[in-house]
């Protein structure tokens, strides 16, 4: 065969292969995620940001990074939730898509890791030296905080993305199998379960003896915490993903249409609704008569809890650069801490909406 014919054929083949690779890569066809949204947690004067496959510890006052863990990111895999911290020991627990829960302590010393058979998307909850965490392998685990030994495991029928909620010796587990379970924290015995029509992706809020949560079937439910019986349910416009908030006798919940609702916890009656500029994925914070909601268009809102009117907005200078707001915010001492999809951490002053500091993940 002539050389030029061969070269021509090879070129065609290479071009075709590149095209195919481009199409398939653009579609992101791999089973493992190539990106995640960051998680933000706080303990004392330290903010913990799980970003990609790394946890960054930041000074809450200045936003300066104290340390980051691990040095080798291939160890951990993508994380989707803020690390849980056990005070005062300062142990940090975080799960990842690498089918493992990691425990380490400042400034980034390995303690132990617990292997699972699925990704860990939700955050861990630490109480009384026990770490509770849900997993995509359809289990909720209780592990010893000291050495990671398994205390008990409770099987569900789908992924578990919500952080378990601990209250008075019990843990409340919301699952993507459409159920919410109440389990005995000591041995994982099931006390009751409630079956909703849609998946429950984030933690419920406990208020006035009720367990309140939203689901993917566009419903908000209130259950009797003692029996698990449904007290009321109310429809929303889109899926409810983030955790509701409770403050001063009102429940606040947001959906992916961008609506924020104020509900009467006794009856489920809607008191007001507010439309944000984009879907609201992140959980809400309600404190001192103000509701804080983050919308995916990169804007945070402070709303009057009684009226639903907008008090002020929090916005990064360049929303394009920052990316969407998907992660739960943290509120402490008149500062609202927000991490954007691309890992920028903003400290917004709640008093006037100005930015106190910004952590740029690309400059660490």
């Amino acid at each position: 065969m002539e050389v030029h014919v061969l070269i021509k054929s090879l070129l065609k083949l290479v071009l075709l292969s590149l095209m195919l690779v481009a199409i398939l890569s653009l579609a992101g066809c791999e089973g493992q995620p190539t990106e995640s949204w960051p998680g933000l947690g706080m303990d004392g004067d330290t903010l913990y940001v799980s970003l990609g496959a790394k946890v960054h510890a930041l000074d809450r006052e200045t936003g300066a990074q104290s340390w980051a863990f691990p040095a080798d990111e291939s160890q951990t895999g993508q994380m989707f939730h803020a690390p849980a911290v056990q005070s005062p020991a300062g142990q940090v627990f975080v799960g990842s898509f690498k089918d493992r829960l990691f425990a380490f302590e400042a400034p980034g010393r390995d303690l132990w890791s617990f292997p699972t058979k699925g990704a860990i998307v939700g955050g861990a909850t630490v109480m009384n030296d026990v770490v509770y965490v849900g997993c995509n392998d359809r289990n909720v685990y209780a592990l010893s905080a000291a050495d990671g030994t398994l205390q008990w495991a409770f099987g569900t029928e789908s992924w578990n993305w919500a952080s378990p909620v601990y209250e008075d010796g019990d843990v409340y587990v919301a699952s993507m199998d459409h159920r919410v379970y109440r389990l005995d924290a000591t041995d994982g015995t099931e006390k009751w379960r409630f079956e909703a029509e849609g998946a429950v992706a984030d933690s419920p809020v406990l208020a006035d003896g009720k367990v309140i949560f939203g689901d993917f079937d566009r419903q908000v439910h209130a259950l009797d915490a003692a029996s698990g019986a449904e007290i009321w349910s109310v429809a929303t416009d889109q899926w409810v993903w983030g955790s509701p908030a409770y403050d001063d006798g009102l429940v606040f919940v947001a959906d992916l249409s961008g609506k924020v609702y104020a509900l009467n916890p006794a009856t489920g009656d809607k008191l007001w609704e507010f439309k944000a500029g984009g879907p609201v994925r992140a959980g809400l914070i309600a404190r001192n008569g103000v509701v804080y909601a983050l919308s995916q268009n990169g804007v945070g809102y402070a709303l009057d809890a009684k009226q639903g009117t907008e008090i002020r907005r929090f916005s990064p200078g360049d929303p394009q650069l920052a990316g969407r707001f998907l992660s739960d915010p943290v509120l402490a001492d008149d500062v609202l801490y927000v991490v954007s999809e691309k890992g920028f951490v903003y400290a917004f002053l709640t008093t006037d909406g100005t930015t106190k500091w910004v952590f740029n993940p690309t400059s660490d």
Partner: protein
Amino acid sequence: MGISELWTSFFLQPMLNSLLWLYSVLGHNFALSITVFTIIVRLVTLPLTIPQMTSSKKMQVLQPKLKELKKKHGDDKEAMTRAQMDLYKEAGVNPMGGCLPMLVQFPIWIGLYQSIYQAMAVNPIQVLDLSQNIYLNFPNLSQMIPLNDQFLWLNLGRPDPYYILPVLVAASMFFQQKLMTMPSADPSSESMTKSMTYTMPLMFGFFSLNFSSGLSIYFIMSSLVGIVIQLGINKVMGMDSSNPPANEKSKSKDTKRPVGEQPVKVDVPSVAVIESENATPAQDYGSNAPQSVPAGSNTREKGKRRRARKKKR
């Protein structure tokens, strides 16, 4: 409305929601839903697939004749184009006939692929994207999320741990490629075809090592449906890739013949689609053999050929 929104509204969302609906009626078995969905989409696009495959087959059959014309007209591009068009006309082939149906199908394949990929959301970002594309007014679709990702030994959102699916992807794709291709008279297309037959299946098999199993199932099913359709077309056209037209067999023999040996004279393939009153008469494919002149050729062309033969000698 931008192209991206148009694409999402008119391709991705209808296909994605149809797939979810199938999942809801097929006992929440996502592997089965992918299979049925792929078959349905391939059947719906059959009126586009058949002309494309038929046209491609006809073009392959004409390759020896095109080569003859090329020899005959040498660098006279104008005459070559005219003769080529005459040949296409006689054979009832539209040289662009295979392109349009393929172009129309291309977005459908991509939509099919994307809808399967989206429905199989395994991490929160993917589920969030999915939430924006589900028809909320369609009863119960939101209740399907997340889809049941367990099937046999597979987690459909993850690669096959035993590498069975990647092997099946490569094997089914190889078999389909073999069926689709026929020996070509043009050495460049011949080498290209051969490379594609082996490289594409290997490439997809390799990719499937990292693909989620659900996508591998889609590739396998798509190839299997393609094989069935191709077998049907080959049968209707009286062709078999393992049994190429007579002239191509003789061509391959001819090229292997030792220098100086007399060429074997064979007839033009008697494929129904190119038979007509003006069809090219019997030709000799040996380079040294005398060539018959098709009706309608002018004296200038005859002179050219004579000069070319002299030059060769």
